[in-house]
């Protein structure tokens, strides 16, 4: 399994000279499974460039899994080139809601006045699925989606192939209402997803001093992200969902802080950046962006 990050910015796309190193596109991760199944995690603005890339490859069904439907995870879907290829099979998976179907909820954005075209006008063969409660097979991978602590129905994803596990929890506030000290694993949101992961991509939107003003917004501070990864005994932590107000220099400082918190043992945490490639079957790339 190989992962490529096409967008790791949180909340709002943040292009500009101060964000070129880590990138300004919102959440989108491409997974290449060993059987060739194209799998896309989230449809933030990063999916636009991925769509251009996928359009150059032979046509085959594409699976897009949405962790939740906040705009920074959905707003790129309408600009995903394969969506406009007549007849191409595209499966979109998302968290279930007790009220509206996934199609109804996605259509709130992909319809006027927020978007010029109706979802029903999409020419590809769009198939929408509620993510099941049980683990399921998708291509050569096994996938488990579980609700995690964020605002609104939101899942984290555990994707396993050939004994390697990528866990993707881009939006997560695991220590809401409680600090990391004294939270037993069975009471920790996301623990059963992330336990023993080869790679954990996890929300680390805030510096510690920023978090108190954002409690309950559904995101983690850097120390909470490190504590969560340590509690789950993950092999490598990739920090994700960068605050749109953070420049490259600030993000480098955040990465330094994460490494200090992590300590000397094991793989030091890395900040996600656009273009980052992770080969889970071999050694995970660890360098920072240029």
């Amino acid at each position: 399994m190989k992962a490529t990050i096409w967008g790791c910015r949180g909340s709002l796309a943040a292009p500009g000279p101060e964000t070129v190193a880590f990138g300004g596109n919102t959440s989108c991760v491409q997974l290449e499974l060993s059987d060739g199944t194209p799998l896309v995690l989230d449809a933030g603005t990063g999916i636009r460039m991925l769509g251009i890339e996928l359009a150059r490859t032979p046509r085959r069904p594409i699976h897009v899994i949405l962790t939740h439907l906040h705009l920074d995870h959905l707003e790129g879907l309408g600009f995903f080139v394969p969506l406009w290829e007549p007849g191409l099979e595209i499966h979109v998976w998302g968290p279930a809601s007790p009220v509206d179907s996934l199609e109804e909820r996605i259509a709130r954005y992909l319809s006027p006045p927020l978007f010029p075209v109706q979802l029903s006008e999409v020419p590809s063969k769009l198939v929408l699925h509620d993510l099941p409660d049980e683990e399921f097979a998708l291509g050569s991978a096994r996938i488990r989606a579980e609700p995690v602590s964020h605002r609104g129905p939101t899942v984290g994803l555990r994707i396993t192939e050939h004994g390697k596990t990528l866990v993707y929890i881009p939006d997560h506030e695991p220590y809401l209402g409680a600090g990391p000290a004294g939270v037993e694993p069975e009471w920790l949101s996301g623990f059963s997803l992330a336990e023993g992961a080869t790679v954990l991509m996890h929300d680390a939107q805030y510096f510690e001093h920023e978090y108190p003003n954002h409690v309950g917004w559904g995101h983690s501070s850097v120390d909470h992200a490190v504590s969560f990864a340590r509690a789950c005994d993950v092999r490598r932590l990739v920090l994700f969902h960068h605050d749109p107000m953070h420049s490259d220099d600030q993000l480098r400082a955040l990465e330094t802080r994460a490494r200090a918190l992590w300590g000397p043992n094991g793989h030091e945490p890395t900040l996600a950046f656009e273009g980052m490639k992770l080969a889970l079957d071999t050694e995970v790339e660890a360098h920072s962006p240029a």
Partner: protein
Amino acid sequence: MAQTLHKSLALILAREFAANIATPVSVWDERGYLVFFNEPAEKIVGRPHAEVGELGPSEWTKLFAVERIDGSPVLLEEMPVGIAHVEKHPSHDMLAFTDLKGTRHEVEVTAFPLLGRANELLGVVAVYWERGGR
């Protein structure tokens, strides 16, 4: 001590909610295990949750004696928590709890089920108001 399982997000958030308010609250999982009660509820139970841990139905009924206000017995399935668990709808009653120290508390109890999207039971939350209490 009951076997501990990883909790659903609904239970995790219910516990954090309970842990941050001054109203006595207990949280029960889908099996009917008492998995948490907050500090204000310790007055009714008579012991801290940290000492008690998770308790199955056959265990927590030994922790404190429950009866009707007039002293007549009440079955587990007649208690608000039992009704919320079995019938999956909210329930309210007034009961008397005798804690481990022998103190009798007359308490109004409201219990409500936590239901998932397919109407599956995720747990039960019970809220307590002691008569003559704060």
